[in-house]
């Protein structure tokens, strides 16, 4: 069974979003997604300062098996990326909600996270495969 922390928000394309105290949000991929992809070997992250529309493809994770796009869960500006993933992409497999975070965004408008899935709703998406 893959882990779905209740305090996070999710997308149907398997990203998670954490609201940080400073008003920014942190983004990664779910445990279910890393498990389905298998061992990651490359992670390509966006440039800091890039402005993203909600749903825009902004990163790529590549596993032994397949490449997969990562989509921005909300509109916003990239404020930080997890540089460690360049050398140790397996952090996403080992710790998808912690050390495997991918990027931080400053949301374009507050409260955009309302359109995202709750953990319970995401559970249903994950169960479908």
């Amino acid at each position, binding site marked *: 069974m893959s882990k779905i922390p209740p305090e996070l928000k999710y997308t149907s394309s398997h990203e998670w979003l954490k609201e940080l105290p400073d008003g920014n949000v942190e983004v990664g991929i779910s445990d279910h997604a890393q498990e389905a992809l298998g061992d990651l070997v490359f992670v390509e992250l966006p440039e800091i300062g890039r402005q993203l529309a909600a749903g825009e493809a902004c990163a790529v994770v590549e596993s*032994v*098996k397949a490449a997969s796009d990562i989509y921005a869960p909300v509109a916003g500006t990239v404020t930080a990326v997890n540089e460690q993933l360049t050398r140790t992409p397996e952090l996403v*497999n080992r710790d998808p909600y912690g050390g495997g975070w991918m990027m931080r965004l400053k949301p374009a408008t507050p409260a955009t996270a309302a359109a995202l899935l709750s953990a319970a709703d995401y559970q249903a998406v994950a169960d479908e495969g």
Partner: protein
Amino acid sequence: MGRHTCLYDLHLALGARMVDFNGWDMPVAYGSQIDEHHAVRRAAGVFDISHMCVVDLSGARTRELLAGLLANDVGRLSIAGRALYSCMLNDHAGVIDDLIAYYLAEDYFRLVVNAGTRDKDMAWIGAHAERLDVKLLERRDLAMLAVQGPQARERCATLLNSEAACGAMALKPFFGAQLGEWFIARTGYTGEDGFEIMLPAGEAGSVWQRLNAAGVRSCGLGARDTLRLEAGLNLYGNDMDEQTQPFESGLGWTVAFEPPGRDFIGRAALEQIRAHGSERKQVGLVLDERAVLRSHQRVLVEGGGEGEVTSGTFSPMLGRSIGLARVPAATADAVQVEVRGRLLPARVVQPPFVRHGRVLIAT
């Protein structure tokens, strides 16, 4: 739901992620497939390959049958237990399957063919066997385990009685022997030393667990694919099929034109191709960019011409992507591959990439 090998429940109990492979539900990995890969390169791993099809052929004219069906020459098999890797071709020299034939006795050979080609192989072989009064017996009563890695043989030997252990350890590469209830062959698909063991299906689960207890890691089809690709070994359906012939699939070395009188199926077509020269060839590719080669990606050759990646993956040993590709015969040492909309330079190399734990390609 797909077919299950006799080890299906054990795979689930061991936490395997299952995938469909040619209609079989098979373990792709039990955890990290890269860790499984390294376990085989450094120590030992065990794979369930019971989905593969074991067929015993018996009858006085079995050798004659195989001399006509196989592009490699069973006439080379003079010592009992000797194995031969061969393509089985159609009249146009298209590859129906690749297989291993074991010579067990003059009237008794064993074939191991691919799971995905089982039906057409049985029909093809069966049609030719009838005329020569050779009997086919599919051995679904047997499970097959591949135990591979530098420590694989020693660890297998600890499971055997002393007589069988001696027999197994004495096997030369590409030989097999019936040792008690087990048929043990020093063959594999990883580029490492090891055994492939055919044993009664009912024993397979306990043997697997005893191998685990002896330090042999459970490995799935994911690691099997990265290992075989590093070893430069073809996968049927990816790297060759009925639309391609051995010379353009890196399999020319398996075709025996000697003796000239052996009239195997596909020979006439192959002689034509040999006379004109094959228009395409198989090469190995190494990608130094941070991306991964995948089958069906387009290969652009300097000076014109195009090819295609037939198998691609990430090589855990090289830390970068490798692949096999079919390209125009004139292709030199550099090409470009279209990877997710970008043209990336790739180096053309001669496989294998890795053998016996050592990287053979400059990185």
